[in-house]
């Protein structure tokens, strides 16, 4: 059924259904949004450092920008946190 092709290797073309122009009075091209808007609709491709959790890193970014909301996509975690300190305590 589905072939084993990663999504980033799928090629797509654009097909035109009808001709239409957009009114420059409404909205902005994403790269041309004024800076406040740009940030409000912005994402950061962050290189997560080892150590802190995805949540902690996201909280830092939120503080740096002084924004109210920030979230991360695809948690990057070892899924060990919590187990090891417990194990160590056990061993002592």
């Amino acid at each position: 059924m589905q072939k084993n092709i990663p999504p980033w290797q799928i090629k797509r073309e654009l097909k035109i259904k009808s001709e239409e122009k957009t009114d420059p009075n409404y909205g902005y091209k994403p790269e041309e949004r004024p800076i406040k808007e740009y940030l409000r609709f912005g994402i950061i491709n962050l290189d997560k450092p080892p150590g802190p959790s995805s949540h902690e890193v996201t909280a830092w970014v939120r503080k740096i920008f002084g924004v109210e909301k920030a979230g991360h996509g695809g948690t990057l975690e070892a899924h060990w946190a919590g187990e090891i300190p417990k194990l160590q305590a056990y061993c002592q």
Partner: protein
Amino acid sequence: MGWGNPKVTGVLPIALEEATKIIQALQLAGKEYVCVMRLHGEVSEERLHSVFKEFEGEIYQRPPVRASVKRRLRTRRIYYMELLEVEDRNVLFRVGCEGGTYIRKLCYDIGEVLGCGAHMRELRRTRAGPLTEEENCVDLYDVAYCCSLWKEKGDETQIRRIVQPMEKALELIPKIYIRDSAVDAVCHGANLAAPGVVSLETGIEKGDTVAILTLKGEAVALAKALASTEEILKMSRGFVAKTKRVLMPRGVYPKMWRKNSSV
């Protein structure tokens, strides 16, 4: 003893304010990792190669005990597994997989199949959907520095470099571009009707997740296609996509629709 938390680094997409609505799309997006796996016994390289091949395709995974999702057996797709280097009992490999695949679990399962056991030692995510470590990947120092340039000196050029428009996150999702007049209706949660479509990408099948965009390229919503690309191109009436997640605030484009008007 070699205990301690495995080092986990790499691409972590962070969305600000309104852009947080797009996170869902990134969570589902495919990922690529480079991983160091530690074997608990001697294994030949040929055997590693053949076991890696076995793991390509659809695999079953039960999420680990400490996971953020329900622990029921689920399938995940491994697009490719590539052995990069073996040194002693450490195995460096690259894996491309569907979103939600647990790599620590994958290492454990590979260890089981090999018979000797194995665990994940280090992990680096090299891709999350369209975001890769090669393109515009910044660290926390960059972020803090560029942000201070903006706040203290009013220089926005750097901040525009490290922050990208949320539309970047939709790059791998098939797109439908719509007329200005159809935008606000979709922002209010309406489904997309055929006359609103200006252009669209090939390869859309019924049931696929699609991104609805304005002609300026702004994200309007995530939707579920109700027809294929070919069908939509021929349709002159009826709905082509069911709106699932609105991304654009209401009122950016003028309201051009009336209640009870048929499309």
